[in-house]
């Protein structure tokens, strides 16, 4: 794998995590978390929004690392007509614009709450479309390992797993730091959701490998690359995901008893994020074409 593709690993996972977090931010919002003891929680919600913006910015910067010739970057919008990559850049820009706009008006508490909500929905929607467009970029006709519904599926799973993990970790951290209690309900929902997402992600990923092994030319090449070079990394990914599942389950059980084991969440989140990065590394590594 080239260094530029390593940049893509981080770029895609980070941007997708930002999208996932935006989504979770909306769920949390709609479940009225933010409205409970608004004054105090606004500190938390603002900080989470800043984190999303920071992640997006980081992803954007990393994305430039894989370009050979940044000075022509502006031309990348030129081919919206046929190029999914051009479209990706458009939707990434749109998502970023909505995200920053929303963060601005939310943090400054400008406009009405419904208008703020519309902005949030627009951001989340742009993000959701962005992840789909990102997936389409990789659905190249002659790359069977990428050219299937597994790619958008995995990208969305990454969004919600990595985004959810960062969100729940940040949320727990901030709640802990600012000494707020009584948000265990949302933690419960989120940890359960994350548990289910990780479980689904793991199963789908293993299914994909199974499909590759039974695929045609190109797919089998990808599978062979995986078998020859990625077994160790794949094992790490699986172990991390299982660890995250166990920790999340323990956390959830603890919550039921009124115990908030934030450390479980931190470790589970870190494990999930690293597992997603490993998964994405493998995704790029097993690139193989029908052809040469």
């Amino acid at each position, binding site marked *: 794998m080239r260094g*530029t593709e390593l940049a893509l690993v981080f770029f895609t996972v980070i941007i997708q995590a930002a999208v996932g977090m935006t989504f979770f931010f909306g769920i949390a919002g709609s479940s009225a978390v933010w409205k409970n003891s608004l004054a105090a929680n606004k500190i938390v919600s603002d900080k989470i929004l800043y984190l999303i913006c920071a992640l997006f910015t980081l992803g954007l910067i990393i994305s430039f690392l*894989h*370009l*050979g*010739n*940044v000075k*022509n*970057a502006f*031309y*990348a*919008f*030129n*081919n919206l007509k*046929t*190029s*999914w*990559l*051009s479209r990706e*850049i458009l939707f990434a820009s749109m998502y970023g614009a909505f995200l920053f706009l929303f963060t601005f008006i939310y943090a400054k508490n400008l406009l009405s709450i419904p208008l703020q909500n519309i902005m949030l929905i627009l951001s989340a929607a742009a993000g959701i479309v962005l992840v789909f467009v990102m997936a389409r*970029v990789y659905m*190249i*006709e*002659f*790359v069977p390992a990428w050219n299937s519904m597994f790619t958008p599926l995995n990208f969305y799973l990454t969004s919600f797993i990595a985004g959810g993990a960062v969100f729940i970790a940040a949320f727990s951290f901030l709640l802990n730091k600012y000494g707020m209690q009584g948000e265990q309900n949302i933690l419960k929902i989120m940890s359960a959701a994350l548990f289910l997402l990780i479980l689904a992600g793991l199963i789908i990923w293993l299914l994909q490998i199974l499909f590759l092994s039974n695929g045609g*030319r190109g797919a*089998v*090449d990808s599978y*062979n690359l995986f078998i020859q070079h990625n077994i160790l990394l794949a094992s790490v990914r699986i172990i991390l995901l299982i660890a995250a599942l166990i920790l999340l389950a323990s956390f959830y059980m603890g919550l039921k008893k009124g115990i908030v084991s934030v450390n479980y969440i931190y470790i589970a989140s870190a494990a999930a994020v690293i597992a997603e990065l490993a998964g994405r590394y493998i995704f790029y590594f097993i*690139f*193989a*074409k*029908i*052809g*040469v």
Partner: protein
Amino acid sequence: MSKQYGFYVDSSYCSGCKTCQAACIDKNNLDRGVLWRRVYEVNEGGWKKVGNAWVPNVIAYNVSLSCNHCENPLCVKNCPTTAMHKDSRGIVTVDENKCIGCRYCEWSCPYGAPKYNEKKGVMSKCNLCADFIEEGKDPACVAACPMRVLEFGEMDALKKKYGSVNEVFPLPPGGITKPSVVIKPHKSEADVKSISAAINNREEV
């Protein structure tokens, strides 16, 4: 499209001597590692001891390949900047002044034609020696071939002369991009198992 130029490759007589590759490097001043034309060596099969003899069941052949200047080039379709484009003669080339060096065309092309120019940070590829064509000459690779297995011309004429086979292993099916190439397969092409491991000179291409 008024014209579509392309190549004829007679794989049946190609020895893999790589004179085409060297001629291309010289003509286009290519750096090491940037091969606008390259030769894939396909080789598979095993050996059996029968009596006192080692008996081979071995096939090998070569495919010399540059850019096929496809009718529907995926590199052009997928290029975000339109730097990769197809001109009125059907030649697919890169506009270095637009290219961002994202290498997406490299992923997209099933023929390995677009090559990254490390020095400039942009893509580069076979331009069919457009300047030679203007002068009425053959592209450098075609004029170089000691075995005379390469030919250049308008696709209609090449197809009329040599038929329309454009997909021998390790090339992909030609239906999607419609490559502007006609290939005469080597006799052992029919026996190849079509897995990438059969390309035995990976380090050279």
